[in-house]
């Protein structure tokens, strides 16, 4: 594994879950931010939501898309919510 590579866990919800066809997966990546990871996923998995439609959480806390990601992180891209 290259020095800049890390393996992260991804959870999918709502339309992203449907487009990916998976609830969760692990992915090895060399990108450094959550935002760059989403751009990769969008290209590879055909996600139709743009980054502006999403929020991102890393290890259960909302973060900025520029947040650096680390090996072992749990990353979730959250489509617009509608509880209640």
């Amino acid at each position, binding site marked *: 594994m290259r020095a800049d590579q890390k393996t992260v866990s991804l*959870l999918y*919800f*709502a*339309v992203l*879950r449907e487009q990916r066809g998976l609830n969760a997966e692990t992915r090895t990546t060399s990108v450094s931010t959550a935002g760059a990871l989403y751009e990769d996923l969008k290209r590879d998995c055909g996600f139709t939501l743009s980054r*502006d*439609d*999403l*929020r*991102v*959480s890393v290890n*259960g*806390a*909302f*973060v*900025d*898309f520029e947040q650096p990601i680390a090996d072992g992180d749990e990353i*979730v891209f*959250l*489509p*617009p*919510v*509608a*509880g*209640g």
Partner: protein
Amino acid sequence: MFSVSEEPLEDLDLQGPLLNREAGGCVEFSGRVRDFNQGKTVSSLEYQVYAGLADKEGNLILKEAREKFDILEARCVHRSGHLKIGEMAVWVGVVAVHRAEAFSACQYIMDELKHRLPIWKKEHYADGDSGWIRSHTPPLKAGGDLAFS
């Protein structure tokens, strides 16, 4: 005091844990699955919940309500899974000595959780179609403000 339930909320003692001998007034909100939304007949509703984050954010909202309003206690239970028409999807209860504070706090909690809880709902329509419901509020740009909108 916030929790997500896969069991019907109708089967839970929702108000019980809030009641104590000091609590003069209790305000509750319950939201149920409607059979009609935006011009289409709904047959059922499916809730997906990111449980770890929902617990954290839900308890944060309740903490904010206890700080902003003069209340004794607040509780919220949100349903997950597949719900039929008429089933309860969310319940919020607030007890206080002064009822005006209980009303304000309950309304605050509902407004916040609608926009901040990582919960998604998909409506299944009588015509076989289905769709994910979008919140009315567009999401905030990521940045300093980490509140989900």
